[in-house]
């Protein structure tokens, strides 16, 4: 039985639809109930919904054999997993944003507010800029407006929230999308089933391109 961790929310539902189309359906998942785990013994597959940021942990620790995680989470936590496919869903970008007209003269330590301290630290280390990271858990856009930080490093989808708060993207760091990941050990012992799923999902991704 292959354990699949799906991210709760709209992205997870889209991903499940892809698994369904790939022939790994589990009708009970569509029922309106409070169950946490959904199983289709015939297809040898078991799904469960988890918080999107926890998918990589479930997979890395082997509680799930495969799962779907955002590239942002993979870059931030760097779990020891295989990254098998870019599903092309949930496309956005990790970017540096600042108040419109902001200019970094490089004379002072740059204060960076973010939910992704590791990604931010790596980005500025690459360009050799000294920074002070302010780790926040939400409403990141507020930080430069109230003077808590000079810039933010965050996920930007359409840029509307930034625009409405008089912020603008200064620099793109990396494109983000949903990825199919696999536990390294589980991959070696279940590779036939995982490859079957991978091939079927890949066909869907290629046809969408």
């Amino acid at each position, binding site marked *: 039985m292959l354990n699949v961790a799906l991210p709760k929310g709209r992205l997870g539902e889209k991903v499940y639809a892809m698994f369904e189309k790939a022939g790994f359906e589990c009708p009970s998942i569509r029922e309106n109930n409070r169950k946490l785990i959904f199983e289709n013994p015939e297809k040898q597959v078991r799904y469960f919904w988890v918080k999107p940021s926890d998918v990589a942990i479930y997979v890395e620790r*082997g509680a799930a054999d495969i799962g779907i995680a955002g590239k942002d989470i993979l870059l931030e936590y760097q779990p020891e997993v295989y*990254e098998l496919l870019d599903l092309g869903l949930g496309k956005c970008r990790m970017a540096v944003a600042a108040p419109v007209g902001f200019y970094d003269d490089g004379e002072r330590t740059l204060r960076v507010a973010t939910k992704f301290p590791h990604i931010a630290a790596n980005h500025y280390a690459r360009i050799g800029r000294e920074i002070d990271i302010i780790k926040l858990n939400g409403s990141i856009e507020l930080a430069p407006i109230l003077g808590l930080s000079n810039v933010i490093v965050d996920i930007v989808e359409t840029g509307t929230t930034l625009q409405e708060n008089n912020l603008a993207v200064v620099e793109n760091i990396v494109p983000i999308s949903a990825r199919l990941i696999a536990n390294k050990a589980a991959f*070696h*012992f279940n590779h036939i089933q995982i490859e079957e799923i991978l091939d079927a999902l890949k066909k869907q991704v290629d046809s969408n391109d």
Partner: protein
Amino acid sequence: MDENVLKREEKAVFGLRSLYRKYGYLPYKMSKFEEYEYYIRNKDFLTSDRIITFNDTNGKLLALKPDVTLSIIKNGGDAPGCKQKVYYNENIYRVSGSTGQYREIMQAGLECIGDIDLYDIYETVSLAAQSLQLISEDFVIQISHLGVLAAVLDRISGDQKFRQSAIAYIAEKNAHDLSRLCREYGIGAEESRILSGFVTIYGNREWVLDQLEALCGSWAEESLAQLKALSKMLDKTEFNPKILFDFSVVNNMNYYNGIVFKGFLNGICDGILAGGQYDKLMQKLQRKAGAIGFAIYLDLLEQLPGNRAEYDVDVLLLYNEETDFSCVSRQVERLIAEGKNVYAQKQIPPKLRCRQIVRLGKDGAEC
């Protein structure tokens, strides 16, 4: 001796020791501490540069061992023409990647140091397989060859950033980001296809060799010939189908060269065995010899499902202040002779799970 009292990792240690002795490996015992400076000079070889340190009585900064291989190399001497073969079973202290906390890790392994030839490589891989087989029949060993990868990368690009990223993507089996990287660096379509082959070609050794031969045979002739010869020797072993080729096994190429491998046991979420040939590390440490070895992380065996005991003891023997103590002793011995384990107490301890409670009266008889 009753082997049932041994934990799985303790049984494994005995089994491994006996296996390695059969092949002439000698035990290697080392100090728990090493000079901190030695590790810092070679910190890239370690999985983390966070090391537990303390001051010796003379003020020298010492470290609790985060690694065994470095100590073995440091303390050995070169003997041209000879090989030093040692095995060990040591606790090491490292930071856990997931929790960021220090952990004590029970590690067993072996090192073969000297003029490494194909037989040594075969013997090391074979012993790695036999080590896992001692623990469970359900195992897999993935072998890669850094010489093949290095030769292909040499042909494609000399850019260190490109090479590092490409290797990281191959280790992740991440074909999509590898293609994107090749596009970013203007790598040609043919070279990009060859590099992607290292993600998609894995599994049965013969099939992998055929594919690689067709893909990049002329680029890495020497290394592929070594892989072929090793594969042929492994064909004759009982664990032949469990040893596969997979280029996602990538160790630090500044230290490792040639064969590298990783072992997995079904039921354990991480690789339990890791090893490879590390001639480059030997050169960095001014040793003239080559070396190959592997380590097994025995603490991971806890993850294997096992038969948990239903009870803590078979018999809880309850006596009181008035009971004759010699009668208590006689009853304990009698029950042990019946093959039971006995816990003599005056009161029932909280949370104790016992199969049977026996109460002794004043005269020592059951009541």
